[in-house]
C-alpha cells in the first residue's frame, strides 16, 4: 500500500461503499482533472449530499514540472524565461518579480526608464490577465458572450507585447538589471491608443454582466469569505480586497516605480463572487490610470542598470514579492555566491488561494463550485509549478 498507490484510492472515503451509497445520501464524486471548468488540470474530489457540497479536497500536481529544482540547475539568467511558464497568463508579472528579487539580492536597481517600461507592461498584463479571467469565469457560469469580447480586446495588449519583445504570452520581457529592449518606435502611441480604446470596452463588459439578473443570481452571496478568514488562509490579491481588506503590495510596500503613481485600491464589502467581479473590473480601470501616468511621464535614459555580464549575487538570502494579478507573488532566493541559485522558492498566489476553495464552497451547490473556482482566478501552471 505504501508502494505505488493510486492517489484516488488513498484520498477517497470509499472503504465502506455501502455506507456511502446506501446508509446516507453522501456521494463522493470527482471533478476533473480533465474538466473545462477547472481552468487546467485540477482535480477536486467533492463530497455531496444530493447537490449540496459537504466538503472538497483538491488534488493538484498534474502540471508539476519542478521549477524550483530546475532553478538550482540553471544560472540566474538562464532561469529567467522559466518563470514565465508558471502563471502563463501573467508572464510579465512573474518576470518582474524574479528580476527585482535578483536585483535586490545583488543590491542593484533598474534605471528609472526601465522601471517605467516595466510598470506599463506589467499593468497591461494585469488587464490581460483580468480579461482572461472574466471571459472564462463568465463562460463557466453560462455567459458565453463576454469571452469573445474579452479575447478580442486582449488581442490589442498581446499585439503590444509582440511588437515590444516578439512574444505574446511567455514574454520574457525583462532582464536582471533592467530591460533587454528599448521601446519600439510607436510604442507610446500604441499604448495611448489602447488607453483610449479600452475604457468603453470595460463599459461594454459591465453592460453585459453587472446588472444582468442571471449573473447576479449566480454570483451574489456565492463563495463568501471574510477578511479575517482570508488573512488566516493567506489569501491575497483581489479575493482579499473583495472581502474588505484594503491591501495591495503596490501601495503597502511599493516596488518598481509604483510609489510615483496615483491610483486607488478598490475594495468590496461582502467578500462574495460578485464583489470579486466588481473589484477586478475596478482594478482594470485603475491599471489604465497607472499606465496613463507612466506613459506620459516616461523618463529618458538607459534601460539597463550596472550589472555584470555574469550574474553572481553575494552570499545571502532575500525575499521579494510583488502584487501579481492573482495576489502576492514572492521569490525567496538563497545565494551561495555562485552563478546558480542555491535555493529558489516561489510563493505562488494561486496555490495559496486555492486552499480557500474548501471553506468557500461548503454548503453550496455543485454548480457554484465552478463559479468559485473561476472567481479564485487560479492558474494551474502556477499552482503546480
Amino acid at each position: 500500500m505504501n508502494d505505488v498507490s493510486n492517489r484516488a484510492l488513498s484520498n477517497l472515503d470509499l472503504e465502506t461503499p455501502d455506507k456511502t451509497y446506501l446508509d446516507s445520501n453522501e456521494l463522493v464524486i470527482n471533478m476533473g482533472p480533465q474538466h473545462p471548468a477547472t481552468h487546467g488540470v485540477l482535480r477536486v474530489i467533492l463530497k455531496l449530499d444530493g447537490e449540496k457540497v459537504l466538503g472538497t479536497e483538491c488534488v493538484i500536481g498534474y502540471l508539476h514540472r519542478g521549477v524550483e529544482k530546475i532553478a538550482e540547475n540553471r544560472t540566474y539568467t538562464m532561469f529567467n524565461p522559466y518563470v514565465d511558464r508558471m502563471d502563463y497568463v501573467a508572464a510579465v508579472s512573474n518576470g518582474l518579480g524574479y528580476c527585482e528579487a535578483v536585483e535586490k539580492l545583488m543590491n542593484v536597481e533598474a534605471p528609472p526608464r526601465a522601471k517605467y517600461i516595466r510598470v506599463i507592461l506589467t499593468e497591461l498584463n494585469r488587464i490581460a490577465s483580468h480579461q482572461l479571467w472574466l471571459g472564462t469565469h463568465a463562460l463557466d457560469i453560462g455567459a458565453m458572450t463576454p469571452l469573445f469580447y474579452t479575447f478580442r480586446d486582449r488581442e490589442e495588449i498581446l499585439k503590444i507585447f509582440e511588437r515590444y519583445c516578439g512574444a505574446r504570452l511567455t514574454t520574457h520581457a525583462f532582464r536582471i538589471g533592467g530591460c533587454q529592449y528599448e521601446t519600439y518606435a510607436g510604442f507610446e502611441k500604441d499604448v495611448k491608443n489602447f488607453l483610449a480604446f479600452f475604457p468603453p470596452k470595460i463599459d461594454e463588459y459591465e453592460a453585459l454582466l453587472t446588472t444582468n439578473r442571471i449573473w447576479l443570481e449566480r454570483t451574489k452571496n456565492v463563495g463568501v469569505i471574510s477578511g479575517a478568514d482570508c488573512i488566516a488562509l493567506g489569501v491575497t490579491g483581489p479575493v482579499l480586497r473583495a472581502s474588505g481588506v484594503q491591501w495591495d503590495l503596490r501601495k503597502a510596500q511599493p516596488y518598481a516605480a509604483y510609489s510615483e503613481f496615483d491610483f486607488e485600491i478598490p475594495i468590496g464589502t461582502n467578500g462574495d463572487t460578485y464583489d470579486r467581479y466588481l473589484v477586478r473590473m475596478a482594478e482594470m480601470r485603475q491599471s489604465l490610470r497607472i499606465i496613463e501616468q507612466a506613459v506620459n511621464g516616461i523618463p529618458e535614459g538607459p534601460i539597463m542598470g550596472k550589472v555584470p555580464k555574469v550574474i553572481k549575487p553575494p552570499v545571502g538570502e532575500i525575499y521579494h514579492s510583488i502584487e501579481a494579478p492573482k495576489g502576492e507573488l514572492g521569490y525567496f532566493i538563497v545565494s551561495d555566491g555562485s552563478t546558480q541559485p542555491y535555493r529558489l522558492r516561489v510563493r505562488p498566489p494561486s496555490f495559496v488561494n486555492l486552499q480557500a476553495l474548501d471553506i468557500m464552497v461548503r454548503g453550496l451547490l455543485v454548480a457554484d463550485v465552478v463559479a468559485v473556482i473561476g472567481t479564485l482566478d487560479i492558474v494551474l501552471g502556477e499552482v503546480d509549478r
Partner: protein
Amino acid sequence: MAEEVKSPAPPPPPEGEKKPAAEKPAPAASAAPAKPAAPAKPAAPAKPAGPVPVPWTSPLVEKYRSQYGSGLEAQTYLGQNYFTVDRSLIPDILRLLRDEEQFDYCVDITAAHYPKREKQFDVVWILYSFPRNERVRVKTQIADGASIPSSVSIWPTANWLEREVYDMFGIQFDGHPDLKRILLPDGWKGYPLRKDYGILQQDKEWVQINLGIESGQ
C-alpha cells in the same frame, strides 16, 4: 476592517526599513571606485563590497532576547529582518509573533537543504503583519529525520505550505492534520529538493510501473 483602523497609527516604525536607506549609498559608492580595478582583477575586488548581515535592533528583539537569551539571533540583511532561532523555541516564538506582535499573515513556509551540515535543513517562515506593514523571517536548523511542530493551529494557511515542504524535503511536521504529499504522487520515492536527489534517474521506477515505459527521460 480592524486592520484599517489600526494602520493609521503604525507602532514602532520598521527599523529594517530605515536601514537600507542609510546603507544603500555605501555599497553603491564603494562599488563605483571598484569598477575601474575590475578589468585587472575580475571578481576578486567585487566580493568584499557586498553587504553583510548586521545585527537587528528593535524593542521586539530586545524583548525576545531577554526572554530567550542565546537561543535567538536577530539580523538584518539588505533591509530584511530575520530571526535565527533554536528549534526548541520555534512553537513559542511563532505563537508570540502572531498573538502579541500581530504577525497575522504567514506568507510562506519553506526550507533549504545543506547536506554537509550536521543539521541539514533550514526551515524558514516568512511572516507579514498587516497592522505593522512589516515582514520578518524566522529560521531554524533541524537535522535529517528530526521533526518540527506544525503551525497549522497558528496560521491555517500553513496546511498546504507544510505539505509541500514535506513533499519536497521530507521534513516531518508534528501535529499536522493531514501530512501527505501534495504535488507529487503518493508513491513517489525520495524528496526532490534535497541536494543529493539526482534529477536524471529519479522517476525510472515510477514510470516503469505506472506508464509501462522504460524511462521518462
